[in-house]
């Protein structure tokens, strides 16, 4: 029997071929820039040079400099890294908590499910940004407090999705068969339920990543997320705001970069959602499968 996780990944790969090239291009570019940022920025994104502060685009500073003389082009690239790493950490933690609790709820059912899902209900009754703000208001500002706040705000959604997937997987006949064959609950959970739940939730997570990027930038814009001097798009935008009149580029560029990345994630999520809908078989596909069925020997009617 093929591993469900493998099946989910190969399904994702098959789905990727039908994705809009633009979204894929944006996201690959974003990931590449984020990964290699420290080695490709023409200047140190933190290096201040007050003598050349607030310059326009030139051959020396391609996209100009900010109010402290830091190279905007370098900072834009370095921000991609900040954003990428923040998203990876937060999504990883939120998925770990959400998938664990959600799949356990779907696996155990009954009282356990009831308790977990009520907690999820309360968590989902409020928009994630408000939850994150409240958590920061209690614990304070800082990188890891931001991570904590966003993980707390994000896990209920993941738990809900995983519970839904887990419940459908549990109702499939092969789980029933495993039980009849005497598989232990631990085996059913770890070998069969968890991998297929994880696969499906990973696919949904891409759709959600855009909202997370937006949340990180919004918190940083408000001065509650990524703290200076670490470069981040939302923070670059708020830094440039007082000089909007004379140097609009310092506001427009980080805003555009952020928007582009979020558009990429949203387009990806949308086409994944569309790909998951059952589509009627095309004529060519039908003919193909009929031809294939005709070659089967009469005795074996079941498809392995």
């Amino acid at each position, binding site marked *: 029997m093929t591993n469900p996780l493998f099946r989910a990944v190969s399904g994702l790969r098959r789905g990727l071929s039908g994705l809009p090239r633009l979204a894929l291009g944006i996201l690959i570019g974003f990931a590449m820039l984020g990964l290699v940022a420290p080695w490709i920025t023409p200047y140190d994104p933190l290096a201040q040079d007050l003598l050349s502060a607030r310059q326009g685009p030139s051959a020396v500073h391609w996209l100009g400099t900010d109010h402290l003389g830091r190279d905007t082009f370098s900072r834009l690239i370095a921000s991609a890294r900040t954003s990428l790493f923040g998203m990876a950490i937060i999504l990883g933690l939120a998925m770990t908590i959400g998938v664990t609790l959600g799949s356990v709820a779907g696996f155990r059912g009954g009282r356990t499910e009831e308790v977990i899902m009520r907690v999820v209900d309360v968590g989902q009754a409020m928009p994630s940004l408000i939850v994150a703000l409240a958590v920061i*208001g*209690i614990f304070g*500002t800082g990188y890891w407090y931001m991570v904590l706040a966003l993980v707390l705000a994000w896990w209920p959604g993941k738990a809900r999705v995983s519970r839904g997937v887990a419940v459908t997987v549990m109702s499939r006949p092969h789980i029933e068969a495993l039980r009849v064959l005497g598989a232990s609950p631990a085996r059913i959970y770890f070998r069969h339920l968890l991998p297929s739940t994880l696969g499906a939730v990973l696919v949904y997570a891409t759709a959600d990543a855009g909202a997370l990027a937006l949340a990180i*930038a919004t918190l940083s*814009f408000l001065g509650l997320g990524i703290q200076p001097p670490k470069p981040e798009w939302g923070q670059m935008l708020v830094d440039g705001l007082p000089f909007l009149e004379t140097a609009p580029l310092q506001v427009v560029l980080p*805003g555009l970069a952020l928007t582009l990345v*979020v558009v990429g994630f949203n387009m990806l999520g949308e086409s994944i959602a569309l790909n998951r809908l059952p589509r009627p078989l095309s004529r060519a596909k039908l003919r193909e499968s009929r031809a294939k069925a005709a070659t089967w020997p009469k005795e074996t009617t079941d498809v392995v």
Partner: protein
Amino acid sequence: MRGMILRRLRTSAVLLLLASMLCFGLVVAAPGNVAVLIAELRTPGATFAEIAAIESELGLNNPLPVRYADWLKGALTGEFGISYKTGQDVGEAMRNRIPVTGALLAGAAIFAVLASLALGFIGALRPYGMIDRATRAVALFGASTPSFFVGAMLVYLFSVQLGWLPSFGLGGPETWLMPWITLGLLPGAILSRVVRVGLEETMARPFILTARSKGLKRNTILFRDALPNIAPAFVTALGAQMAAMTVGTVVVEPLFAWQGVGELFLQGVRFRDYMVVQSGLLIFVCFFIVLNLMVDLAVMFLDPKLRRQGSRT
């Protein structure tokens, strides 16, 4: 129908109770002794006796359920206590600011509804025309653009370049326009797609064919038969966008220097002023729960299928 409404009301009541416990628990679990903070605020270098006096004055030595009941009684009458940081009456500050936030939200919602209906109908009248394609692109980017970026761009366009509108402040009608548009533009773009797609789907249904064969004009059908059909979907989407706009006030109010609830909440978060965070969170969460309740009830009344189904049970 009545059973359905009662059940829905009960769900909301339970959620409200849980949310109030969460808000209360947040401050109880917060690090630091509240009494010490207040004593320091009143007299720097307070003695233990003074701290103990404040503890008993605030009822901090009472058991938790009693403290919760006292706090809830206060919250229901609009008393949220004294801020530990600034010493101001939080309940009064919130009350003064609710009209500002209300005006911002109402204006933005009206703008979003009008814009989305207009754009959605134009799109449905001329499918795949210029305006249809433009709103589609705006809606796609709309879900992805941060509101602070939109606000900054509007300020640049209308204040810096054209000089038509003031870049911040709350005064005459000219100062209302930009915050409303900043908050309402993206929800409006998203809602216009709901209208447009809903109309397209409805126009493909058999009863529209019947209306066409009776000889009714396409535009008449669009307004008289198709519009009521998209109402439930539109109201649901509007509710979700209203929630998003409420969160947006935290960003938009400081951007335009409006003294609203969102701005106060943000100040509270920034300076870790627990009482302000607590009361702000409670107000927001109560608003979300009531909003969801109103949306669900409105959909029940707007959707004939739900109406009939409810009357049988």
